[in-house]
């Protein structure tokens, strides 16, 4: 995904039920509902746009357990 220099949310497609709560929660519109369907039959969300500030809004809005994990980019110089 080329996320070396940016924050990102990792969405587990197997746990996502496609409710899109994260899609509307994200202040930067980073997440979208994809066209693929997972084993439960849901069109799951995916992290698409690299403008993530790792605010965690998607994480806290998500009604599933551990479907979203938020990663913060390395600090400069670290």
């Amino acid at each position, binding site marked *: 995904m080329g996320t070396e220099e940016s924050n990102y949310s990792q969405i587990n497609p197997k746990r996502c039920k496609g409710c899109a709560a994260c899609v509307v929660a994200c202040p930067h519109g980073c997440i979208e509902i994809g066209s693929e369907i997972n084993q439960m039959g849901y069109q799951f969300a995916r992290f698409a746009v690299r403008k993530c500030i790792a605010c965690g809004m998607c994480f806290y809005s998500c*009604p599933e357990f551990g479907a979203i994990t938020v990663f913060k980019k390395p600090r400069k110089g670290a």
Partner: protein
Amino acid sequence: MHTIKHQKARSLYPTFDRKAPGADVSHYCPGCGHGTVHNLIAEAIDDLGIQDRTIFCSPVGCSVFAYYYFDVGNIQCAHGRAPAVASAIRRTHEEAIVISYQGDGDLAGIGMSQIVHAANRGENITVFFINNAIYGMTGGQMAPTTILGQNTVTTPAGRLAANEGFPVGVAEIINSLQAPVFVERVSLAGPVKVMKARMAIRKALRNQVEKKGFSLVEILSPCPVNWKMTAVESRRWLENNLEPVFPVGNLRDLPKGPFDQVDKKKARISDRKILEILGVGEEEVHTGTVRLKEEQNFKIAGFGGQGVLSTGILLANCAIAEGLKTTWLPSYGAEMRGGTANASINISHETIGSPIVSFPNALMVMNLPSLDAFEDTVRPGGAIYVNSSLAPRKVRREDVTAYHIPASDIANDLGGIQCASVILLTVYALVSGAITIETLQKVIPLAIKRKNLVDLNMRAIEVGIAWHRENCPKEEKTTEV
């Protein structure tokens, strides 16, 4: 290296094995608010470092399965009774962090009196009240919190105040009491509001850690499926329709409760003192001479009113007096008098794992329906004690020992049909050797509430002994049980 900023809480199990081993998704519908609140609570438990001493009281409702998700102590409570259960835990486990998690049907419907009184006692517990304005699990019926005009399965034309009353504001009701320290209503309508809910949840739990007293957080939560809309629409509907009726915000945040939780502890009295007050402390009988030949799984069955349950208690009390371990588990229909009743009693030298007796090795039946119902459950080699006055047929099984005693007729002759079960119990005591006649004679005066019947029961024991002497030959006795 990227660092993890937000991830699944440690207080949630890695997998939820309810549906299948290794499953890791919840049973909640897409977009349900429960999962969000679970995440917030689990995170707060992690951050407060209280996972090892948290006891989570699951309600009845969709969140009944919360114990499949939270890796903490769990109890599933009867409908609406979670605050009562939480109160009991609070008073017996001083260091426990007790969480009562309830929905609106559970808390504001059937459990309204429980929550009001727990709050009024200022129990140092934390209550999370999930308000989705509907009965979710049962398919979307009107709840006490359903707003006016809202269409539900049971209010298809919309809730009408004149018909169904007004929606109940639980946070306001709790806030009208003196004892609670923290009452706040939050909403899950959007990310910012979720963060406010997060703060309220953490505060409510921290209050309990600091032993401040009763905290309640009412959480307005979406139920997309029963509201018949998408998850995103449901959040908008929540904001536009529920929030005006149930205004979000803090209603109360006191620096400390109206009474010190330590004083509350001091007011308690010891178990010994309670026994003294009840006047039973000194009269305990302890003989402790019995060696069981085998663990006794005893079942007594009959009509309600035949002394089925009290005979069971009497036997269990005798076993306690013998220094044995025992359990007593009653089972009866709603009708009590005249209905069917049975009681299961286990007697053992060892700790008893389950109070249930499915396959007894000693069965006492007071009437024919009970004999029909339970004859086949007796283990081979067991014994059946039949009140042949009311169960006229013989025991059909050949691999058990049967004792047909016309107990009701004998009891009538003695002057009171109530003592029939004691005659049977006496024969059981002699045959099984599980309790001694001396213990029975000592315990009966303590166990019988109506003291004028003590004498009758004492005579019933004598009759039982006589029946046993006449009908059970000595050589057979040695091979019994």
